[in-house]
């Protein structure tokens, strides 16, 4: 078993556990007790798997846990008209070591700029949406939440910075949003939320419900 395998596995397990814990911590969700039993089992199995890797490669697990404990989580959520997430992508960024980034379920090496990661997240969300068959396709809202004010400030105020690649990326995302809008003939709202992750997600969903007005131009 290689170190790379351990790393991929540990980051996947940690993100799966984190995802389910986040869902259970949000009072919008109230799974039935029988469903909870299975979700609890998943969390226990994740803990066992992490303990197992920790025996072999303690540094990997400790780094991941401290990363999640710092709660520097950013996420891009596309909410449906009816209040449920259709797509949610999350990225954990260690601001002290920006090269360490983990998307939900997989590692993305090389991306060191939080803004680029955000845009990647939107990209992924939009491409997921365009291939998704069961959605009520009246409107989508891209809600971006972050629990770190510094990241949000960077995102909002530094978008005009002269970095050529960043500018290209920004234009490209805007083009994708525009293309999706034309393709699906739906309004798309882009909103930034500076808030901690759970509260931000909740606020995003509430705002999505308020924003989704089919008659809005």
């Amino acid at each position, binding site marked *: *078993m290689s170190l790379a*395998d351990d790393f*991929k*596995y540990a980051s*996947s*397990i940690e*993100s*799966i556990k984190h*995802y*389910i814990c986040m*869902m259970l911590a949000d009072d*919008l*969700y*109230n*799974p*039935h007790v*029988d*469903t909870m039993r*299975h*979700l609890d*089992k*998943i969390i226990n*199995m*994740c803990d066992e*798997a992490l303990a197992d890797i920790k025996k072999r490669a303690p540094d990997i697990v400790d780094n991941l846990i401290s990363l999640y404990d710092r709660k520097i989580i950013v996420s891009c959520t596309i909410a*449906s008209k*009816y*209040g*449920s*997430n*259709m*797509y*949610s992508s999350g990225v954990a960024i260690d601001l002290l070591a920006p090269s360490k980034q983990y998307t*939900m*379920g*997989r*590692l993305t090496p090389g991306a060191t700029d939080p803004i680029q990661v955000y845009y990647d997240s939107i990209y992924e969300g939009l491409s997921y949406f365009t291939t998704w068959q069961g959605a*009520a396709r009246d409107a989508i809202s891209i809600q971006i939440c972050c629990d770190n004010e510094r990241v949000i400030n960077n995102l909002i105020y530094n978008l005009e910075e002269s970095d050529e690649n960043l500018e290209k990326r920004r234009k490209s995302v805007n083009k994708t949003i525009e293309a999706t809008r034309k393709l699906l003939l739906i309004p798309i709202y882009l909103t930034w939320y500076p808030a901690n992750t759970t509260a931000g997600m909740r606020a995003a969903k509430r705002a999505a*419900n308020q924003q989704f007005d089919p008659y809005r131009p």
Partner: protein
Amino acid sequence: MVIKSNMDPNEVVMWEIRLARSHIMNAIIAVDDNTMRDNLEQLLLHTEKALEMQDNIWARTLIKEK
């Protein structure tokens, strides 16, 4: 079924579990080791069971509403 202004909480939970399932499936694709894959498949199994459970509960809720 009449779509309400807000989705049924049971359905919302199902969506979230489906997303968790997609995270696990991504992880299964990402790992090369067989033991790791087996463990992840066990996680997937529990996710499927949770989904099935929640689906049954939601179906019962809909029947009651009718």
